[in-house]
Each structure stands twice: as structure tokens, then as C-alpha cells.
């Protein structure tokens, strides 16, 4: 756990940073403007991407709203949390930050709501496509690995006894 700088600081206990560690720090520092720009770009397109993904999902899962009160509004909020957690983790260059901060917790909620792994996967894949279609090319490079990771982590839970999607 911990981002690159924290990990390197722990590893360098009692000594100076090695040449390779200095290179990693320099590369990370040089990447920060691009990471922050990608976050800003993501913030700008967040609403449109989420609305697009939710509209597509509503067509494919017409019964979802029968099972849950305020189902789509709630799902919008959950996917919004994923996008924002991905942005923070991307800036920090720390995928595990996203797991601990949000994904494990959210996955438990999805399972407790009797969502299916396929529904969650479909939701996040469509969200990823909607984001990719709207982001600038540079931002896509930084953001998409984190959304891809969210697909993997969040859809990894057992099938519910009675699906509610």
C-alpha cells in the first residue's frame, strides 16, 4: 500500500535514493502536469459520460428499476464514485488506493444488492467506452488503466442466489 513516493521513501530507509529511484521520482514528477490535466479533462466530461452510460444501461436492463428504489439515480451515484476514485488514484499513481478507498466497499454493496457480476461488468465497460469517447487522447492514456482495473475488481463477486437487475 502507498503511492510511489511513499514506497520509495520506505525502501530508502538509512540511505540515499539510488540512481534508479531518482529516475522513477523524476519521471513521476514530470508526469504530474499531464496527470492533473487528465483529471481536469475527466471532471469536465464526467456528467455527460455517466448520463450516456446510464441511458445505454437503461435500455439493456429495463427491469433494474423494478428491483430497487431510485435504482438508476443510485447507480449513477455509484459509477460517479468510481470515476472520481479513479481520478485520484491516477494522479497519485496508486491503483491500490482506489481498491481500499472505494472498490472493495462498493463491491460488497453491489453483492448485497443482488446485482450480478455481468451487470456490474457491463455497467463499467459502458462507462469506460463513454469516458474514452469523450476524453482527449492524452487523458485517455492516463485514465483508462484505472477504469479497466475497476471493471476487474468490482465484477469479481459470486453470482447472487436471486438476481435483481
Amino acid at each position, binding site marked *: 500500500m502507498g503511492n510511489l513516493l511513499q514506497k520509495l521513501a520506505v525502501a530508502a530507509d538509512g540511505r540515499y535514493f539510488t540512481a534508479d529511484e531518482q529516475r522513477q521520482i523524476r519521471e513521476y514528477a514530470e508526469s504530474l502536469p499531464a496527470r492533473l490535466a487528465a483529471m481536469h479533462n475527466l471532471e469536465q466530461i464526467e456528467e455527460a459520460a455517466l448520463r450516456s452510460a446510464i441511458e445505454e444501461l437503461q435500455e439493456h436492463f429495463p427491469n433494474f428499476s423494478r428491483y430497487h428504489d431510485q435504482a438508476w439515480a443510485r447507480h449513477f*451515484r455509484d459509477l460517479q464514485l468510481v470515476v472520481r476514485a479513479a481520478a485520484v488514484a491516477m494522479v497519485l499513481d496508486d491503483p491500490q488506493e482506489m481498491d481500499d478507498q472505494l472498490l472493495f466497499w462498493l463491491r460488497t454493496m453491489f453483492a*448485497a444488492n443482488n446485482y450480478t457480476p455481468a451487470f456490474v461488468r457491463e455497467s463499467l465497460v459502458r462507462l469506460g467506452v463513454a469516458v474514452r469517447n469523450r476524453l482527449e487522447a492524452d487523458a485517455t492514456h492516463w485514465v483508462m488503466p484505472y477504469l479497466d482495473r475497476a471493471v476487474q475488481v468490482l465484477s469479481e463477486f459470486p453470482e447472487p442466489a436471486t438476481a435483481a437487475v
Partner: protein
Amino acid sequence: MLGCSHDLPPRGNYFAWNAYVQQNLHAGTMFNRSGAPLLIVPDECLVAVVRTLEEEWGEEQATEILRSIATAWGRRAGEQLVQEVTAFYGRSFMDLPLAMVTAVLTEAFRHHGWGTFRLDFSRYVHGIVIVEVDNPLEGSIARPDCGALDHILSGLLSGMWSYLAGRELGCLQTDARGRGASVSRFILTVPERLMGRSAGLPHDEALAELCQCTTAS
């Protein structure tokens, strides 16, 4: 509990480690994000407590003492959890959607090192909640040579859920990692239904008996 959560503030996991644990190294103290003191108890301490109680009081009484302590602790932990989570999410814990309560409890146990929990409400109509725990430490380290049960965890669950449910609930452990099962399993229900049943019964057998039982739930 409410069926919707869309109007909750967009906040993530209260127990996220980087935010949850705050250390004051000048004072040598540690607190959670709400300011409650935290103390790391190493496994050697747990082993010493369990073995000393057994030596002084015998296994049966030691088990009762451990469960009693853990039950009292569970009540207080439940009370504290409700206060902290209510403040964090800006809504009464008891008004949170069930899925969110499940996620909060799961993360609470996971981040305090008690293993990964899965709460199963499929027998709720029978007045039963099942808790499955991966990687519980207690039974595996306290008396690994004789396949110990997770008495502290069982008492903790009983006390916490009694507080959350607003009525007395007992906890019966069926499967145990310390006895070679893949996960430890616990059954929570009213204590009257658990009377005369001993821990360590095969899970499916114990569950089937309890579901047939018509005692008030």
C-alpha cells in the same frame, strides 16, 4: 432501513486505511478518523489471554469468560460504529440502505484485521443471519493443535448485532477455519433458538434444524 441511497453524500469507504488510522508519533498514540483511540494487540497477547484463562478456569469456563468479554465489547463497538458512521455519511446508521450497512460492517472487520466477512441475509425470513469469515485469526492461532473455535469473534458478533438489532441475539459458530473448514461460519438468531445447541455442528445441519424450529424469531 431505506431502500435508496442516491441522496447520500458521495462519500466512499469510511475505513479506507490511509484515512482511517491517524498516528500521533510525538505522543505515541493512534486514533481512528473520528478520534477514538486505537491500540494494536499482537497475536501473542491473544494467545496468552486465551491460554491463561484456560489454565486458571478450565476450558469451559474460559470460553464463557471470553464470550462474555467479547459480547460486552461488541455492544460498545456497535455503539461507536453507529455514532461514527452516522456522522460520516450524514445520515442515521439505522436509516442507511441494508447494502450499505453490509458494506460498512464488512469493511470495519476487514480493516481491523478480523478477516473478510460475507453477510448472508437469505434466511432472514427465518430470523437468521449467517456470517462467513475468511481468514479469522483467533481459532487458528489460539489453540491450533486442538482445532479451536473463534470464541471472541462469536461473542463480538453477538454483542454488536444485539446492539444493532435492538434485541438480544445469540451467535452459534458452525464451521471453523481452526478445524479445517474453508471458512468460519456463524449463525445469528434469538438466543432461545440456540439453547442446547453446541458450536461446531456441521453448518448445513445446524441451519436446517434452526429453519425447522418454530420458536419465535
